[in-house]
Every structure is written in structure tokens, then in C-alpha cells.
């Protein structure tokens, strides 16, 4: 029964992700932009192509921690998916395209701009950072284990990226996205080694995912 519940919840999240992604990128006109660039009038095929590309990218991001999970059960995949969708900032396909096609040097922020960026970063990490810190703390200090080199590496890299995000205007969102993803990898790796009742946490994060879907859709409609 447990297996089927996780399967059903994962399916709900997958469907929600697909709908949100489609809604977001169609509203932003990514498919339309690509269609016009290649001289086509019908955007539908391009919209579908963008949906598939975005889903593939998402699948890769979900697969990395799942590849590391042992045993590879439905519960593990659900945990990864629910954490990803709850904690990661929403990043649009148009932003990714713009980021990778605009090769201008990022502006160095100063004074007030650094604080504006820092506030944005804090908003992003306000939820994940205490969660990761607690998991790390419990793992190290209660289970009597040490953080591995990969945990420390990912943690340090994310701190560097977050600091760089405060200074480099224009790159803040992308650097935050990568930094939070790294933090998430650490948190997920620590969580799988800890054994405590997780369903209340899953439940809360599941609602956060549903809210994120609603929030993004409300913004684009």
C-alpha cells in the first residue's frame, strides 16, 4: 500500500510540474520565440519541444541524487522530488535561454545593491538552510559520524556561490539556483542516512509543492 501511495503522490507532483512548466513557458513565449527565429508560424511544435527539453533537464537534476540513493525505492524518489519542488527556486526556461545567450560580463554590485541581492538570497535559503543545518548537525553530532569531503565541498561551494550571487548582479538567480541545488544534494544525502519518521515532513513539503505550482500559475495567468 505504501508503495502505491508514493507512486500516486509522485504522479500528482509530476502532473503538476508538467502543467506548471507548460503554463509558464507558453506564457513567456519561449516556443513562439524559437518558432519565429526558425521562420515557422506554428508555435505548437516548438512549445512541445521546449516542454520536453525542460522536463529532461528536470529529470537529470532529479536523477543525480537518486543515482546516489540506496536502495532505489519509490519512497526515495518521492523524497527527492518533493524536496526539489519545495525548496528549489522556480527558474523559467526563458531565463535559462537568456542567461546562456547573453554573454555580457556581470555587473559588480555595490552598497545598496548588494543588500538587495542579499535579501533575495535570504528569501531563497530561508527555508532550506535551517533544514540542512539541522540535518547536518544531527548527522554529525548525534549519530557520531563525520561529514564527508563531498558534503563539505558542496557546502563550501554553495556558500561561495551565494556570496558571489550577492556581488554579481544579473547572475544572482542562476548562482542561487546552483548553490541551493548543491545544498539540497547535501541535505538529501544526510537525510537518507538518518532514520526518523518522515511522513509529517513529506506532508508539509507536498503542500509547499502544490502552493509553488499555484503561485507560479497565478503569476503567469
Amino acid at each position: 500500500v505504501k508503495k502505491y501511495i508514493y507512486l500516486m503522490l509522485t504522479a500528482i507532483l509530476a502532473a503538476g510540474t508538467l502543467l506548471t512548466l507548460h503554463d509558464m513557458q507558453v506564457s513567456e513565449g519561449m516556443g513562439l520565440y524559437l518558432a519565429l527565429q526558425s521562420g515557422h508560424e506554428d508555435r505548437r511544435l516548438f512549445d512541445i519541444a521546449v516542454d520536453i527539453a525542460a522536463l529532461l533537464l528536470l529529470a537529470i537534476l532529479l536523477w543525480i541524487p537518486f543515482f546516489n540513493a540506496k536502495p532505489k525505492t519509490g519512497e526515495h524518489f518521492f523524497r527527492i522530488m518533493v524536496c526539489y519542488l519545495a525548496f528549489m527556486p522556480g527558474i523559467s526556461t526563458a531565463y535559462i535561454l537568456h542567461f546562456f545567450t547573453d554573454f555580457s560580463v556581470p555587473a559588480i554590485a555595490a552598497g545598496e545593491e548588494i543588500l538587495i541581492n542579499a535579501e533575495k538570497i535570504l528569501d531563497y535559503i530561508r527555508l532550506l538552510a535551517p533544514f540542512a543545518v539541522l540535518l547536518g548537525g544531527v548527522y554529525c553530532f548525534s549519530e557520531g559520524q563525520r561529514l564527508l569531503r563531498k558534503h563539505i565541498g558542496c557546502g563550501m561551494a554553495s556558500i561561495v556561490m551565494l556570496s558571489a550571487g550577492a556581488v554579481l548582479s544579473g547572475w544572482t538567480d542562476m548562482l542561487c539556483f546552483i548553490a541551493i541545488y548543491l545544498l539540497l544534494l547535501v541535505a538529501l544525502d544526510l537525510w537518507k542516512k538518518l532514520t526518523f519518521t518522515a511522513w509529517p515532513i513529506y506532508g508539509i513539503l507536498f503542500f509547499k509543492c502544490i502552493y509553488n505550482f499555484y503561485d507560479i500559475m497565478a503569476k503567469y495567468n
Partner: protein
Amino acid sequence: MTEDNRKYLPITLIYISIATILLVLLFLVHQQTHFMMDDEWYATNLVTGEKLQSFSDILESQKWHYDNWGGRSVTHGILQMTLMSGEFWANIFNMTATLLLVFMICLLSGYLNAFSYVLGLSLVIALNANIKTSMLWQSGTVNYVYATAWILLFLWIYVRALKGTKYRVEKRQNAGTVRVFKQIAALAGISVLGLMTGWSNENMGPASFLFAVGVIGYKYFIEKEKSPLWMYMGAFTTLVGSALCIVAPGNFVRSKEIYYTGLVNMITERMIMMLQAGAAFLLPSVLLCVVLGCMYCRYQKAAVKVEYIMLGVMAFLAFGAMVLSPHFPDRATFGVMCLLIVLILHFLQELMCRISGFRRCGYLLLGISAIISAVKLLSIIVLQGV
């Protein structure tokens, strides 16, 4: 200086430094935040429109307010008093109320020392969904910070009774006029506090009443013990206060202004509103509380104490009661957030006391919440974001 004192001096100095930095930043933010929006209206006699001059102006205003605008007479009466005292003194009162609130949070969690106080203070700022409207805007500060402080005081008295610590007046067995006088004073005190608690706001007031009834019921049915008169009195006055707050004619005057769009639309809107409040405004505190609760059950191998289960249920009821309201602004989650911080501190204390390694986990949590709080306050000071 003893060896123990010398050992703990550096860490105590660190706590004092963190608290000082946060309090100085908070005071600077208060100084920068002038009376605004509703404050300007409440700073006048609501009937005549003239600037508030005396206590009778406040009484006259609150009478009009009750009939035409809303039932929160206690908080709005106090708000008008702080507005009448001017910005500087209002800021001093606000800082005092914040310090008292954190003190009450620690007291209720059963974890009162330098560490828990600094952690409580930084969590109130770091987990706050909207610090500007709940702790800086004068109307918000009185409605949420002041009101939550006395609500927590009311709850603490009942939690003490539940823990088996009898109310001081009852411990005195010596008969005579002193005892009778003290009992009357206790009854009067709890009546005033209960009335203020019930009359504070529309969700925390009724939830406090249910909490008091829950404590009385638990003592009666589970502990097979009769509750003292003051407990019934406190519950009754909270009920009266809640009723006065909710059935105020002003609430009905204002509710007529809300356009009714049909039952289905209303249910959908309320569901979205609750989802937003739970999954966005309250999420950091809920998540922290649940994670620590799960760890408590796992590592402590003990059930959560009944008074903290009741506080958790009360937080849920106070949150759920908002489904009856047409709006659920982010600042309205302040009271529930404070209850969750009480639970967070309680779980953390139990874990830190029993599992030595968990101590460092608590320090990490303090570090990160202090950084988040400081950056939040600093950005308001520098960016004038209020």
C-alpha cells in the same frame, strides 16, 4: 569568579553580543519607521477627527470603533495610548513588548537561559512572514507583539497548573483574611487577563479559550482532579472576551462591504488563502518545528508532553480559525508562529539536554537564524524598505 563561571563567560559574552546587535538593529529600524497608514487615523479621535488629547478621546474613539469598525477594542485602545505618547516612547514600549514576548516564549517553552533567549529573539525575526507589518508598523506591533505577549502569559499560567505546580495563592494553606484577599486578587487578575486574551484578536482569543477548557478537561477526566475556581474564571472571561471581539457590530458593518461571489468561489478562495498561509507564510516555522518534533520522537524515544501537544493543537486551531475570515494577511500568522517557536525551543531543549552532540546543532541553528535576522533588519535600515 568560580571555575564554572569562568568556563561559561566567553559563550555568555557571545550571546550578549548577538542579542545586543539584534536589539540595536531592531531599535534603529523602529526609529526609522514612522507612524503610517492606519496609525495616522488611530492617532485621532475617531469621532471628531481631532488629534488625540486625553484618555476620554480614546474611550470615545473605541466606542465608535466597536460600533462601526471592529471588535479589537483592547488592542486598539492600547494602540491609541502608544500613539498618543509619541514616536520615541512608542518605540520604547515596542522594544519592551518584544523583550517581554521573547521572555514569555522562553518561559512557556520551559527553556529560559541566555542561549534560549537569543535564539527565541532571532527566531521571532527570522521566521516572521512580514516583519514590517507585524513588528514595525505601530498598529501591527500592538495587535500582534503586545497581544501575543499577554496571550502567552495567560497560557503559561494554565500550563503551570497542568504541570502540577499549583498557583502560588493555593499553596498557602494558612487561613485568614490574607489568603482570602490573595484569592480574590488572583481571581481578579486572571479575569482581567482572560478578558484581554479573548478580546485580543479573532483567532488567538477563541483558541486560548479552547486551550483553557482543554486544560480543565484534562485535569478533570485524566488526572481526576478538580480545577480551582480561578481556572474556570479565566476560561469564562476568555470566552466573554472572544464573544465581545467577534460579535462587535462594527464587524458586521464592515462585512457588508465584502462582495459575495458565490459559495464555490468563496470556498476556492478560502482554500487558496489557507494554502498560502500554511505553505508560504508559516512554512519555515512549521518545518523547523516538525523536523525537531520528529527528531525528538526518534532520539528521545518519548512521547511529547501533554501541555506541548495542547499548544500544538492550539496553534493548529488558531491557524484553522482563519478559514472563517475573508482575508488572511501574512502578519496574522504572528501568534501561531510564536506558539511554534515555543514548541521549537521545547524540543531543542529536550534534545540538547539529553544528547550532548545536539548542543552544537543548537548553536548552528542560533548562528544561522541570527545571520538571517541581522540581514533582514540591516536591509530594512539601509534600503528604507518600510
